[in-house]
């Protein structure tokens, strides 16, 4: 046995050598540094840690193991997914081909590609969410609708910047501030952009406490921020049980493409409210949600391979995502201001910004900003109405874009 030959082969195949010897190997090094930064933000700064840690580690794994020309040992293979998506190719939409060639994270990614994980996450969200504040004040739905403004403005902006229609739709949905919806739509319309879109969506969701307050201050005055809202009415158990059935029926009949998201969201909520499926509700909220989060986060992170991620489009997506978030906040606040005027000053316009989905972070921001101006003001439950309305609103926006571009 030629020991030197074996050692030479091992050295040549190592990732260290690949950084220098393979085409674009240095880009992997940059992505590894980005993964470290994301890990730092998740662990130390606690920015959406449940997702960011998995995404960052998936990114780290794929960039440690996948180099062009040397991809055989990789845990994620962008080239086989490119084959999978190549219309007219030998392996177009062939899961058999994926199973034959796949690495570990390719297997996880099948759940993303098939749209399974976002829907299951929505089931968990439904099981965790109390829609009572929305039922107590159904007008909150208007704020949830108004706050989808950023989705469509960013969509238009992306078209102006040269993205295709389906790509622009996927970028626009970042403004819905809803990670699973953004992933769901992007895997259907522009899977090649999944990495940057998922990162932009989750990063900005984590940064809501920094993005929203300056806009809230700019659009409201002291008098408006101090408005104390009256306690909402009590919602009966029956109403809470009927709600998921009614929402599923109306929204899915209106836009059938929303069925996976709205259906799972409302099924989870029915488990929670009906009172006879406590075990299922518990599983959807905890075990299932946690398992799916691990698979979703690591496989989405794995799509951030250097060759796909480090380009001008990523920078454009990050900028458009920020604009989408900011404009959605403006849209929600405009809705809040209209309600403030029409109610004769009884509704605090700060609850409008909670319409951007991102449950419950955006509602907490409304509460915090409100309390800064009136220590005895408790806006949280009032803001939860628009907040959960935003979840439904962003799913409808995604359903619309899917039926137009899908």
């Amino acid at each position: 046995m030629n020991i030197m030959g074996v050692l030479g082969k091992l050295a040549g195949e190592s990732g260290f050598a690949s950084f220098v010897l393979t085409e674009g190997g240095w880009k992997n090094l940059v992505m590894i540094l980005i993964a470290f930064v994301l890990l730092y933000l998740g662990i130390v700064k606690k920015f959406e840690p449940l997702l960011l840690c998995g995404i960052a580690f998936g990114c780290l794994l794929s960039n440690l193991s996948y180099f062009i020309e040397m991809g055989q040992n990789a845990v994620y293979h962008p080239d086989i997914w490119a084959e999978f998506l190549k219309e007219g190719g030998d392996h177009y939409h062939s899961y058999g081909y994926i199973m034959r060639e796949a690495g570990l994270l390719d297997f996880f990614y099948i759940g993303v590609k098939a749209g399974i994980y976002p829907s299951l996450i929505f089931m968990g969200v439904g099981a965790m969410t109390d829609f009572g504040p929305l039922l107590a004040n159904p007008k909150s739905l208007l704020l949830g609708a108004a706050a989808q403004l950023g989705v469509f403005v960013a969509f238009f902006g992306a078209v102006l910047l040269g993205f295709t229609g389906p790509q622009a739709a996927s970028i626009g949905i970042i403004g819905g501030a809803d990670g699973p919806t953004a992933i769901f739509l992007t895997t259907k319309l522009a899977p090649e952009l999944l990495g940057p879109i998922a990162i932009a969506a989750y990063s900005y969701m984590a940064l809501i406490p920094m993005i929203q307050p300056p806009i809230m201050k700019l659009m409201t005055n002291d008098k408006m921020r101090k408005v104390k809202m009256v306690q909402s009415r009590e919602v009966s158990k029956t109403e809470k049980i009927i709600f998921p059935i009614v929402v599923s029926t109306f929204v899915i009949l209106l836009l059938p493409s929303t069925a996976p998201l709205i259906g799972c969201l409302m099924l989870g909520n029915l488990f929670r409210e009906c009172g006879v499926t406590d075990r299922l509700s518990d599983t959807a909220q905890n075990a299932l949600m946690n398992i799916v989060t691990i698979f979703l986060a690591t496989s989405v992170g794995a799509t951030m391979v250097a060759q796909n991620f480090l380009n001008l489009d990523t920078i454009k997506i990050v900028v458009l995502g920020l604009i989408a978030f900011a404009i959605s906040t403006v849209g929600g606040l405009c809705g809040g201001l209209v309600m403030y005027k029409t109610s004769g000053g009884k509704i605090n316009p700060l609850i409008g910004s909670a319409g951007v989905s991102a449950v419950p972070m955006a509602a907490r921001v409304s509460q915090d900003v409100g309390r800064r101006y009136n220590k005895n003001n408790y806006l949280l439950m009032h803001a939860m109405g628009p907040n959960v309305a935003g979840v439904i609103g962003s799913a409808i926006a995604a359903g619309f874009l899917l039926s137009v571009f899908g």
Partner: protein
Amino acid sequence: MEDLVNISIPTAAGTALLGYLVVFFGLVLLMCVLLIMGAIGAKKRAKEEAAALAALPVPDQDAPLLKLENTLPKAKGTAGELKLYNTDPKDAAMIMAIVADSLGKPLNELRFISIREVTDDEV
């Protein structure tokens, strides 16, 4: 049908506007349904409350007013009855005011269930 992949700017503007309107339409429709649901629920609750009131025994005209008050349904927004054990009502009022002050919350947003004097033996 126009190419939606290489979408033109006017079509994109039209799509964006239409999309925003569809979101509003969907949520307004849902709002109407929820308002109707709420109204039906409120009507039902009012009916039940009226039936509960009607089922109450007719008060004895000679009986003290306090007895009647105890049998009536509680007022909307009430936090219920406060039980006092070995505590003077004046002291209880002062304790509640102090708790509200130190929590920074208005008294009407707090609910006290009972106040009991702890004797030296129990400490």
